[in-house]
């Protein structure tokens, strides 16, 4: 059984929260002066003419971190219900979580040894 009471507040607050940036941007649109010249719209590169764009292919070193992140983020999501219901589950749940976390620690050690957690 889903308990969805209280989420009408979420929707209402989503509307109010989204109105903040919309209001701020429209207020500024009405009040600010027009933008001068095309020179101002050049990309900043420490005063030089920009050499090429930024939309090119290059090695993103954080790629491996993103992969490891997915594994551990899913792990945390699985652990949330376990933690909340822990007082009703007792010793068996503790052992089960120990095994579950143990498997993931092995994965962490593997990623560590393989160098997935090295930045260079």
């Amino acid at each position, binding site marked *: 059984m889903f308990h969805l009471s209280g989420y009408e507040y*979420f929707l209402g607050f989503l509307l109010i929260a989204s109105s903040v940036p919309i209001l701020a*941007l429209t207020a500024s649109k009405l*009040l*600010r002066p027009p933008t001068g010249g095309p020179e101002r719209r050049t*990309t900043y590169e420490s005063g030089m003419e920009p050499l090429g764009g*930024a939309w090119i292919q290059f090695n993103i070193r954080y790629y491996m971190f993103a992969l490891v992140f997915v594994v551990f983020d899913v792990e945390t999501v699985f652990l949330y219900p376990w933690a909340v219901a822990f*007082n009703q589950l007792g010793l068996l749940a503790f052992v089960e979580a120990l095994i579950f976390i143990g498997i993931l620690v092995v994965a962490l050690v593997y990623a560590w040894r393989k160098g997935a957690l090295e930045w260079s």
Partner: protein
Amino acid sequence: MNSGIDLQGSFIQSLQQLGIPPEIAKIFWLPLPMVLMVIGAVVGVLVSVWLERKISAAAQQRIGPEFAGPLGVLQPVADGLKLVFKEDIVPAQADNWLFTLGPVLVVIPVILSFLIVPFGQNLLITDLNVGIFLWISLSSIAPIGLLMSGYASNNKYSLLGGLRAAAQSISYEIPLALAVLAVAMMSNSLSTIDIVQQQSGYGILGWNVWRQPVGFLIFWIAALAECERLPFDLPEAEEELVAGYQTEYAGMRFALFYVGSYINLVLSALIVAILYLGGWEFPIPLDSLAGWLGISETTPWLQVVTASLGIIMTVLKAYFLVFIAVLLRWTLPRVRIDQLLNLGWKFLLPVALVNLLLTAGLKLAFPIAFGG
């Protein structure tokens, strides 16, 4: 248990006396706490900007802002007004839509997270049963906005800043979530109200910081990293990346980033206060004090006093943490990107896992001290 002041109930009741049915009265009530909370968040930002500038000045033996209003308190308002009147510069090479959507996506989830911040037993917008988990999930939306604006700027500094911001957020989100998990385990609930109530009754001795000292440190370090505060402000490291993902931003779009980062700081401080420092609880257990003095818990003036004390305590605790964050900014040097990632993945993550298992083990061994 003292249920405290119930503003919603009284509001609906008083409208009923005017002949308005309770369903319609509830619709009237709905936007009130939300608008109040947004105004509170904006005022909180102005106060923390002023505090940051004053404390920074004091740390460097300067005076800081002093002309706009007494002690310069109106300086942040003046800065904000200035940004509204600034011209709107979008680089010709940039992707216009993503460029605007980036800061908006950063601000909305941060404001939305105030949904679950309680200032008292009934003084919050709504007591969702997912509670603190909502904050965890909302806080993972912001990196998408940062990445979006970094990419849309079509500027090399912005792109590198955006990538760094995303890498940093995802690296510190896991220790953060695991630290929250240990607290949720102790209170058997994700609701922020239950988390604070579990710490009540013993005054300062009942606060989670004594039972979760390691979790508290992990959470605070990770929260600083999520807010991109100084020891971890690599995404906008001005000596390396000009201003990171904000390089091309000007005017109101820049202001949104600025406001977003300060709301995030205040919000993180509030969440630390709720999770580890007893939320709205006074350091001395007021309930038992009132009982000892022979005052009934339902006395109207006592309820008003405890409710206002609760709000003051929550805000004081949060601003104490903001104060520490500002002092840390002028005390610690910035870490390198490899140090940052090492700290997150090779130190905080294993320690957070051990902390979680230790909490579980202690909860089995001493169920009374760790929330049954």
